[in-house]
């Protein structure tokens, strides 16, 4: 009987996988495409990659990164063709994968200090595995015997047993919410939200830091970023302003830049102070 009961208790596990968003999310604002696209169902590009990787039905360490990159880029291109707005994170990942693809396919030139395609692929696999591990952890956590769902406290407590010294009750969260709410109330917060038209490459690079960390070496990434981030007519301005932004970052020490020859590819890599984007990981 006890066994039977245990089985029943665990049925409450929430289904974690849902490819389709809520109906009201799925059909918002799509003019007349022949396909309904659900990007909202994904928690960012890594999540999307994880779904694509699962479809290969092999262990994550055995997936074909090349095939995965191609699928992802294909997907993004189809979404773009359908004239749907995509969050910049997805586009930046597409740019990085396009670069990865080129590194995997083209022979490595001599004296090349850019990361090898294999290194980049390994990094991607690591990140996918790490995220998948947390997904599994969620599933295991929510299926535990949880207080208030599977196990219960005394319904009729007789006293609050506390240590003598704190007759007053307040948490740090109480304190901070009170402070933030009060200060915010007093400050005038009638600020208009600025509509973002073009994602600058500086912003893109910040997203990239979040997506692949700060470990990337000399990369001609902007070529790839430009392709995904802007429409053809905006490219010239985007390139110009991004170059200006790059110089600014070089001045700050967040970026290093090099060009081997006139009109040649512009290479970028993180500078000595780039860690400020991601302080926690710098030297822990």
């Amino acid at each position, binding site marked *: 009987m006890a066994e039977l*009961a245990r089985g029943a208790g665990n049925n409450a596990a929430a289904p974690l996988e849902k490819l389709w968003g809520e109906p009201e999310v799925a059909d918002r604002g799509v003019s007349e495409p022949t396909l309904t*696209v659900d990007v909202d169902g994904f*928690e960012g590009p890594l999540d999307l990659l994880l779904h694509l990787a699962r479809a290969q039905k092999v262990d994550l360490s055995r997936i074909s990164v090349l095939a995965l990159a191609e699928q992802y880029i*294909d997907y993004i291109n189809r979404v773009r063709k359908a004239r749907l707005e995509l969050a910049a994170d997805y586009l930046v990942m597409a740019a990085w994968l396009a670069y990865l693809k080129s590194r995997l396919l083209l022979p490595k030139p001599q004296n090349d200090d850019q990361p090898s395609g294999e290194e980049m692929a390994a990094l991607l696999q690591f990140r996918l*595995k790490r995220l998948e591990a947390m997904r599994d952890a969620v599933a295991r*956590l929510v299926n535990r015997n949880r207080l208030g769902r*599977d*196990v219960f406290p005394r319904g009729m407590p007789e006293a609050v047993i506390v240590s003598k010294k704190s007759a007053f009750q307040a948490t740090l969260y109480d304190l901070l919410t009170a402070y933030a709410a009060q200060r915010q109330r007093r400050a005038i917060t009638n600020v208009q939200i600025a509509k973002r038209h073009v994602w600058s490459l500086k912003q893109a690079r910040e997203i990239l830091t979040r997506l692949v960390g700060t470990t990337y070496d000399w990369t001609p990434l902007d070529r790839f970023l430009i392709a995904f981030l802007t429409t053809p007519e905006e490219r010239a301005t985007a390139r110009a302003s991004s170059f200006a932004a790059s110089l600014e970052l070089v001045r700050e020490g967040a970026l290093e830049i090099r060009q081997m020859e006139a009109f040649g590819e512009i290479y970028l890599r993180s500078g000595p102070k780039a860690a*400020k984007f991601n302080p926690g990981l710098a030297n822990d």
Partner: protein
Amino acid sequence: MTDDDMTSIAAGGEGAETGPGVDELTFLEAKRMAEALVFASATPVSEKVLAERLPQGVDVRAVMEELKRDYSSRGVNLNRVEDSWAFRTAPDLAFLLNRDAVQQKKLSRAALEVLAIIAYHQPVTRAEIEEIRGVETSKGTLDLLLETGWVRMRGRRRTPGRPVTYGTTPEFLDHFGLEELGDLPGLEELKGAGLLSPRMPTNFSVPTPLSDPGVLADDEDPLTDIDLEELGLFAPKAEDE
């Protein structure tokens, strides 16, 4: 089972773990007192608080461990949460009780993921959480987790910028039935696999560089012309819309 039950209680009565100099009667009385104190409270009671109230010289942990054994096969169990103790209904009786359970606010998938990352990677900064998920944490997620009381700000990382670090609370352990953080499911495996480190471990299974990356390895399946439709990423438009 009947006899075991009672024997274990009776055996407990022998007071095998009585601290030195404390007689059996004191130990038994301490058990009754601890039982009353913990039973009276809906939230876990710390050993420190118990020590203040139990007779001098009693080994609180020993008292509690014995009480825990007494209750192990009953309908109500005594659970430890770090160094605190609480009575909870036995998990196998969930079916009996959860029809009365108040429907709790469900956390979104994203919030649960952030919660798991905080639990397994703590102390962890917001930037690190975002790096692991590869996406910005949407506004309100951390706020909501702080509000549940399962997550707290722990302190600051001693690195440039001194970012605030997040961790879990005893309420988190209590809610998920964990005695301590080390009991998080799969923790050791994940650690061993290097999946809890902020950076890719140097020994992480870097795939052997393929001479020709266009050629499939032995253990790779060819990608059939997988349709994105099949993956459920594109759905054919419904006719009647």
